[in-house]
């Protein structure tokens, strides 16, 4: 049975991930990704607009729980726990 870390992002705290980018750039395993929530024709999304970008962890299966991201997060938005077992 496999277990993966579950990385919980508190979106009420993590509001401008693209502008902040600390966890995205510090992670040795590159588990994070960031994306504009909506893209408008003819307009660049403002990285400083709260909620315009969303942080995600599509590669969390690579996380070794080194906690570097927790150390650099300025708003304490991240928590990492071991997830439920995965069917394999």
């Amino acid at each position, binding site marked *: 049975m496999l277990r993966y870390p579950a990385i919980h992002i508190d979106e009420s705290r993590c509001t401008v991930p693209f502008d902040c980018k600390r966890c995205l750039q510090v992670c040795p395993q590159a588990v994070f990704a960031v994306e504009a929530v909506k893209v*408008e*024709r003819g307009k*660049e*999304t403002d990285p400083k607009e709260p909620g315009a970008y969303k942080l995600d962890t599509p590669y*969390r299966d690579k996380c070794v729980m080194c906690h570097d991201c927790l150390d650099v997060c300025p708003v304490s938005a991240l928590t990492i726990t071991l997830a439920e077992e995965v069917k394999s």
Partner: protein
Amino acid sequence: MCWVCDIYGDGGLWYLNPKNYARNLYRLRTPGAARAFGEDPETLGLRRMQEILETRFTDREEFSRLVKEANEMREKGPFQIGQVVPLQDAHKMVELSGPFAAMSCLCRIHTRAREERSPREYSCGGLGVGMLKWERWPERYKGGVHFMSPDEAKEWLTKWNKRGMVHIPMTFGGSFIGGLCNCDYPDCLVIRHRVDYGMETGCLKGHYVAKVDYDLCTGCGDCVQRCQFGALKLEVTTRKANIDLLQCFGCGLCETGCSQGAISLADRMSFPMLQEVW
């Protein structure tokens, strides 16, 4: 020849077939039927790939099955097709494209929130007449685009090659080649999806493999850090570079990084056991 050449090559390498670079400038639209962002074939393909990748957190068997199915879909699937090419082939591609623009890498925006905001920083290549309409989607082309003559584009590719980036042409709908990316692991999605998760379509192995001439290799190790695919190491016993040809993607970065001329590219098809390894 690889399966992409069989389908789109017209007898030669698919990414050197001029047909795969040609596209109309205009299309008559039904009023009000403009496509929203994210409905283009490449985004739909990427979304499907992300959905498949997510299944590994719930059901590993289902994940393996979906990956295998995706790899076998080939041209019938929704996925972009990409293949590793060495610098000299990337230079030939430039001659077939019109126009050629440097722009910010979408993968690095996505995985590292990395912003490239000047021609000096742009690391991704956009090909074809669609680039003329980039202003419609500034979020996609964050930081603008920089159009280059073929000679400038070759210099630009050489610069990224020197820095250690792998060149990968990508299709954008059918066989149309709309991108020539400069990629590395782990921030480039197609390399990561291939190396870590076995999703092949976006990052097929190239038509070459790298061979070391042990008489010329001095064991300096300069090539080691240039391999993005884990195929090359310095063999401690012989103190020579060692390339696992089954792992080699044929990008040629070790070749261009070798000051002794000890590494050269050979045709993948000349090795009976590599002819089906893509």
